[in-house]
């Protein structure tokens, strides 16, 4: 079938030469370029995280501390710059573009059975906006790294002497990159679905990306204007956000969180999409309650817009707003809960194969549950007043963003690696590292819940000695994680050269991308494929000679 007939021509070999990559309009190549850049940024952000953890080994600061000669508080400045850059890089350069930009770009059109995204040229622009944004953001490292925290709160961000503008402008460009991607995906899903691919036959990863795209379209422009105004504030003191000129500091926080809260759903929703794919494939089951899972993505996206105020409970936000936002925030928990329960039910009576991606998915259950549940004390008003801006918050969002979104990003990379590169990675190493990550992650971030509840404020370069042992645990965990990530990088790279050729369908996946060869041909499908139910595994048989799963067209269930 298709898979075998075209092994000679795939999107990697379709055309050669550096310019065939730089100017490519092929969504797959753009996806790959995204993947590489995002991973580079991830490494960078990780290194900054390590520096943070090293500093916090000692109560008085291991790297940056006062000395006999230099008592000035400016000694802490490098630390403030480091955690700011860590946050900005991880959020704007890794989490937000990561899954949609890299995996989404590569997989989405194939999953739909389309030849490309709706606007290939815009897609390329989106990538280059990302690159420029990245360069601007990182240029600040040279120009005097920004030290405002990734939230750029005024009036401090207006006063500090560090290079705020370059980073903010970088984030501004990254915003456009994100908008273009979202716009592209929405149009693609509306207009480029082939006959037979109805809305409720779309794989859930597409639904996740659709919900994400909605947020990218509706929220990101507000970030753009916010950052633009911040730049003007620094240049001309417009005064809108600066009390010294009659403006309101709180207004900036409203502007900022109107984007940045929905943004956390930009990060987690696609991860949930990958979760659905992986769970379905490796337990050979249709996703339980497909429509509920699909709709809960949309619900999360929409409700997510009404809850930004929970970042501002003690910040001087008015009581009525506090109450409204608290009430709406607890509601967001529901769609996420629905997803988790449906995934659990999907495992029931499945045929569960513990391949690496599946391990990541199971890890997601574990850490997303913790991350999600610890969101409750932050949504409920009295408990928020104790946990706000402490390490409890730090732990909470690392469990959701890192343990949730990033783990599924890594899981997704493993899941589609054979499809993207046409190579298989070392399975046992993959499993080992995943487990290692899981343990080390909890060692790193669980102590931070306790730190926070005992009052350890976030963004502090030094702390009172009674917190030390928890910080040490956390640092140890961080180092193990770093090591594990390096190993992962190593065996993935190794697989590129030594890995054995990947079959069209190594996992027994039922969605369309597994029906075209690995790596896929330039046009994905020569003739538009017949579309069945997304998670129908009937007739998928392990084929010894291709070492992949195969099935006869006629075994597709074409209507449920």
């Amino acid at each position, binding site marked *: 079938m298709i898979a075998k007939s075209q092994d000679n021509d795939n999107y990697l070999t379709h055309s050669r030469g550096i310019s065939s990559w730089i100017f490519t*309009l092929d969504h797959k190549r753009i996806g790959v370029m995204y993947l590489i850049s995002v991973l580079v940024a991830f490494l960078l952000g990780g290194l900054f995280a390590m520096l943070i953890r090293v500093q916090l080994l000692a109560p008085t600061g291991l790297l940056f501390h006062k000395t006999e000669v230099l008592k000035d*508080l*400016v000694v802490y*400045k490098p630390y403030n710059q480091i955690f700011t850059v860590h946050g900005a890089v991880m959020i704007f350069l890794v989490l937000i573009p990561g899954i949609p930009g890299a995996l989404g770009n590569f997989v989405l059109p194939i999953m739909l059975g*389309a*030849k*490309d995204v*709706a*606007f*290939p*040229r*815009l897609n390329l622009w989106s990538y280059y906006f990302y690159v420029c944004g990245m360069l601007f953001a990182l240029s600040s490292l040279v120009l005097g790294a920004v030290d405002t925290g990734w939230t750029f709160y005024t*009036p401090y961000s*207006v*006063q*500090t*002497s560090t290079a705020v503008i370059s980073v903010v402008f970088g984030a501004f460009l990254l915003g456009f990159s994100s*908008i273009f991607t979202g*716009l*592209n995906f*929405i*149009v693609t899903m*509306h*207009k*480029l679905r082939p006959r037979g691919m109805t809305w409720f036959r779309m794989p859930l990863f597409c639904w996740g990306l659709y919900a994400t795209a909605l947020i990218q*379209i*509706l*929220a*990101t*422009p*507000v970030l*753009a*204007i*916010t950052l*633009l*105004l911040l730049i*003007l504030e620094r240049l*001309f*003191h*417009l*005064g*809108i956000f600066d*009390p*010294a*000129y*009659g*403006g*309101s500091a709180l*207004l900036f926080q*409203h*502007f900022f969180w109107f984007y940045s809260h929905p943004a956390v759903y930009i990060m987690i929703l696609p991860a949930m999409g990958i979760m659905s794919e992986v769970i379905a494939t490796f337990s050979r089951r249709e996703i339980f309650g497909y429509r509920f899972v699909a709709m809960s993505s949309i619900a999360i996206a929409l409700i997510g817009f009404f809850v930004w105020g929970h970042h501002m409970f003690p910040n001087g936000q008015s009581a009525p707003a506090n109450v409204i936002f608290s009430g709406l925030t607890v509601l967001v928990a529901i769609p996420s809960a629905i997803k988790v329960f449906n995934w659990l039910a999907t495992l029931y009576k499945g045929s569960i194969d513990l391949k690496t991606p599946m391990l990541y998915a199971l890890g997601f259950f574990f850490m997303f549950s913790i991350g999600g549940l610890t969101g409750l004390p932050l949504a409920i008003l009295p408990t928020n007043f104790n946990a706000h801006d402490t390490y409890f918050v730090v732990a909470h969002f690392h469990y959701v963003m890192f343990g949730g979104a990033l783990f599924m990003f890594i899981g997704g990379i493993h899941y589609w690696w054979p499809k993207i590169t046409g190579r298989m990675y070392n399975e046992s190493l993959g499993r080992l590292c995943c487990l290692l990550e899981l343990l080390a992650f909890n060692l790193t971030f669980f102590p931070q819940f306790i730190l926070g509840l005992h009052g350890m404020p976030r963004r502090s370069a030094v702390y009172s000695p009674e917190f030390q042992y928890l910080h040490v645990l956390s640092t140890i965990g961080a180092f193990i994680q770093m090591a594990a990530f390096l190993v992962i990088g190593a065996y993935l790279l190794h697989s590129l050269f030594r890995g054995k050729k990947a079959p069209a369908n190594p996992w027994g996946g039922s969605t369309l991308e597994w029906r075209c060869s690995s790596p896929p041909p330039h*046009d994905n499908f020569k003739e538009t494929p017949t579309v069945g139910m997304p998670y129908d595994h009937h007739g998928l048989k392990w084929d010894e000679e291709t070492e992949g799963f195969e099935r006869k067209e006629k075994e597709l269930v074409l209507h449920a």
Partner: protein
Amino acid sequence: MTQLTIPQSPHEHPEHLAHHFESLQQQYDSGKLGIWLFLTTEILMFSGLFCGYAVLRSLHPEIFLYAHRYLSVELGALNTVVLIFSSFTMAWGVRAAQLGQTKLLVRLLTITLVCAFVFLGVKFVEYKNKWEENLLPGKFYHPEEPPPGGEFLKLRGTDSQSVKNDKPADVKPQVTAGAVGERSTIAPAAIGPTGLSEPWLEGKHHGRQSWSGPEPDNVQLFFGIYFAMTGLHGVHVIGGMIVIAWLIGKARKGVFGPDHFAPVDFVGLYWHLVDLVWIFLFPLLYLIS
């Protein structure tokens, strides 16, 4: 399908059909949906400025009542008419493109472009005046003259209650200091909306909408928001002019016709949005009370 073999760019292909689309209709609908989504993002982007405007105006009405008199309603109105007319010619241009009336299309687009130039010209005159009178945002705001219309008691600085103390002119050195070193010495802002001096409070009680007191605090806020809003809008006008110029070039070659007028249509939509924004900016900035 023949499309599989054609080069990527829609514009070199006779049927203007990109390889990944099935039909012209599908391609057109995709483009239309795309441009509407893009307009959505534009609106949300401007909404930030409108939000800032709304909050500041509701907190410091006196600033707006006082400062809007610095603006010239005549020029604002003129620009409104110019933009509306350009919108009209643009809409007509789309019609011309749909009917393949190439010459007419080129003419209409040219008129639209000229209107845009006129608009920018008027804006330039306005900005120039503001610049000369130092009616600028933040620390650059220190006009010599009170605004025309309504007799203003020139009490600046004489009563301790209002004005001078955190006038930007005074804050400036401190703020820059804060920026250089890490410690800032900005005086704490007054309780309540800054500088609600007596005349205003009375005025408020009588629901009076005009401001006849001394200059209120933080008038520079008005010019901050004024330049931000009109400036961003101006940038969009310039962007529009570039694409319209590009359209004219294409139209001269006669590439637009009944089955390929999408570019004209989409640029048109964008241009109408620019017009829409101005339709709101005009009353909000020029016609206060």
